[in-house]
């Protein structure tokens, strides 16, 4: 298992380099200009100078190599510096976002808690409600509970979050005034009152995202349970006189969880990617909003860095999911 993991990690290196090149080339070939949102009153000569100050007068391959050096050498060194208080990295060499004129990684770190709180919690809530729903739906297949569950998950899966989000805002913020329509990212939880405030502003975005996640995962859970319930070992367990509780929760559930756990693990990188639309709708301003505004502003270093981090996380969690598979199912051996 260890040699397998190491081998996978080594293969990941050329994969990631290739991904970074593809991202760079796509961004390079895409139309657009980082100065497009500057007003027309800025004269062309000034625009030319601003472009040069961003380093845009360099050829593309120089900019790509520079980014590689910045991402794989300067940024890790800077991280070491800030953790240990050393001074290895040259602050001038960091990846600088064009729209903020500030180190891109600093802003990513600043945005991370917001996204993990809202999107991460929504994922957790989604999983917690999806697993029991999946189990009961499968155990009582075609019952009224299963039918309602199927209906709700179909709705949750097919109605886009920009619709559910705005509906929730109009009902609960505009008409009922229960929850705020705009998320306050400056709120610090220090006491009971601010905790309640934080909880109140998280209710709507978390609900929207959790509904979406839960509908997906509950379908997987249900399908996997149904597969296992038909197996011979279930009949054997029942024939041995085991109680239904033991049969379902110990034998069937454990075996059904194997594919579901990998699905859940593969979904974790999407938490870091943020929820672009939901974050926009509720003004959560996390990583998703950071990415979309960077795309609008043609802030290539920021877009490149963010998408590459997402790509790296996806590769990593793919590996984790594969390893988990082996851990959960002793029949699977990679070596």
């Amino acid at each position, binding site marked *: 298992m260890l040699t397998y993991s190491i081998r996978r990690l080594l293969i990941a290196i050329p994969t990631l380099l290739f991904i970074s090149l593809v991202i760079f080339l796509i961004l390079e070939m895409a139309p*657009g200009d980082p100065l497009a949102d500057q007003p027309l009153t800025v004269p*062309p000569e000034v625009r030319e100078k601003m472009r040069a*100050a961003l380093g845009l007068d360099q050829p593309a391959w120089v900019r790509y190599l520079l980014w590689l050096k910045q991402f794989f050498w300067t940024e890790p060194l800077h991280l070491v510096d800030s953790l240990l208080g050393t001074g290895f990295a040259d602050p001038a060499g960091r990846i600088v976002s064009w729209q*903020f004129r500030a180190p891109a990684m600093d802003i990513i770190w600043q945005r991370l808690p917001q996204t993990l709180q809202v999107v991460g919690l929504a994922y957790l809530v989604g999983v917690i409600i999806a697993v029991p729903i999946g189990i009961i739906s499968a155990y009582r297949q075609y019952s009224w509970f299963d039918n309602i569950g199927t209906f709700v998950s179909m709705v949750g899966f097919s109605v886009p979050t920009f619709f559910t989000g705005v509906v929730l805002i109009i009902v609960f913020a505009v008409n009922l005034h229960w929850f705020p329509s705009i998320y*306050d990212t400056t709120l610090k939880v220090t006491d009971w009152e601010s905790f309640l405030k934080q909880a109140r502003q998280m209710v709507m975005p978390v609900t929207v995202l959790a509904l979406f996640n839960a509908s997906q995962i509950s379908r997987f859970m249900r399908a996997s349970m149904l597969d296992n319930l038909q197996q011979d070992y279930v009949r054997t367990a029942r024939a041995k006189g085991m109680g239904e509780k033991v049969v379902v929760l110990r034998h069937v559930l454990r075996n059904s969880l194997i594919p579901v756990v990998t699905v859940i693990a593969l979904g974790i990188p999407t938490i870091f990617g943020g929820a672009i639309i939901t974050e926009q709708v509720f*003004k959560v301003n996390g990583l998703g909003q950071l990415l979309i505004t960077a795309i*609008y502003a043609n802030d290539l270093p920021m877009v490149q860095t963010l998408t590459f981090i997402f790509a790296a996380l996806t590769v990593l969690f793919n590996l984790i999911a594969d390893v988990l598979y082996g851990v959960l199912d002793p029949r699977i051996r990679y070596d």
Partner: protein
Amino acid sequence: MRLKSALLGAAAGIALAPAAFAERGADGHLNIIYWQAPSILNPYLSSGTKDVESASMVLEPLAGFNEKGELFARLAEDIPTLANGGVSEDLTTITWKLKPGLLWSDGTAVTSADVVFSYEYCTHPEGGCAQAARYEGIQTVEALDDLTVKVTFTAPKPNPYNAFVGSTSPIIQKAQFANCLGAAAPQCTEANFGPIGTGPFTVTEFKPNDVISMAANANYRDPAKPAFATVTFKGGGDAAAAGRAVLETGEFDYAWNLQLAPDVLAGMEAAGKGKVINAFGTLVERIEMNMTDPSPSLAEGERSTVKHPHPILSDIRVRKALSMAIDRNLLVEVGYGKAGRPTCNLVPAPEMFASDNTECLTQDVEGAKALLEEAGWTDSDGDGIRDKDGKKLSLLYQTSVNAVRQDFQALVKQWWSEIGVETELKSVDASVFFGGDPGSPDTFQKFYADVEMYANNFDGTDPEPYLSQYLCDKIPGPDNGWQGENINRFCDPAYDTLVAELAKTGEIEKRAEIAKKLNEMLTKDSYVVVPLVDRGRNSAHSNTLGGVVLNTWDSELWNTSDWFRVK
């Protein structure tokens, strides 16, 4: 009458008294929402409106513009003029005096060295300063003493109020930015995200593209202001959500630039939590005529260049007929409601510069048809499209992707088809259209179309730089990398001469007269530029926020020091 106005004045004085004598910070917290989020608080590194306006609560210039477009002193003691000797007789120098006793928010004194430094910061060749145009034509900026700054121009400057005037040209603190000159500018993240200023507020925390937290500046020059102790300046989302947060839920006090359909905005306002306010500036939505041939049959590098005059639009009668066929009142009603008014002028304001040119406001389809007949365009084959010498009267009409612009395109296409002109519509993503990438065929500068529509305006109140865009030598083409502001490829020696005369004229009345003439040469005399709508701006404030005066000549947040809570 006199007594009545005196009484009214006294009553107004009493009514305003509680606000005027309020203590600094007595009104608690203010919430502002901009649906475009500020990315940086240094206007010298970004000229995005969201960045300049948010920074204007912290950083101030020597003088600003009020809601009527008039200059007023901010950090300066008064406005230097020819009359008070601040501007030299030969128009080559202007001498500013700072108010004595001014302090930065960190408690240190504001001196003329800071003003000189602001100039050096923006004019550094490697800095990529976004406001460099404001410091054009300056030879030196020198400090005569601690409070006096003398600006010397390379040539007589009839309008010397460019440098250090308006929110795009503020004074930054030398002590804070001393190590941030030129290429080092982007590394000064702390300074760029939290500039020390002289304005009514100071930055306590800045989260780029998200939120700014501000507090009242303890060293602000008026001890009674600002009335608010703290401010949350939230950014992001969309105009509808920002409008909702002010007009319907009441979570926010002020929302900027609500570009929403007139009926949507009216619906929100009906909730009764706030008011929509609007004001007009110089932003004009217009159709630009291409005077050169954009035909794809021409070689690359010759398309849309002065080598080939436009086969159809070179005839003024065609251009005039196209303008006559448009119903500008309907365009306003459909696209902008209260935030727009029909115009025939490229320079619609300030009032003294606006020409009395209203002929185009009435649609005249029959007149347009007659004019085209006269120009020799007839429908010889009966297919509804006019032709001449075997060539169809068919035009490509491009603009950027924007719901209102696509509505306008459809309406104009309809009117033009009524007079026998076939129109092909094209819309380009705004970041490409305005991006200026010389490699792209779809930029507004390259103008590979017969007519195109967009909006433009000018900074401040003086239209001279704006009107100078139409000089012969500012035509974009392959030789200058398609940079140049004379989008129409208009070239008239008489126009060039008149612009040169404007550049030499100091008297304001004379200037206004010349500017009006120039405006007419581009519009009603030649129909090279076909103005459609004078676009105002909609913003909204809650009913509990007082003191808001919408200003289109400077930052919208120009007078936040006077804002207060209505109790």
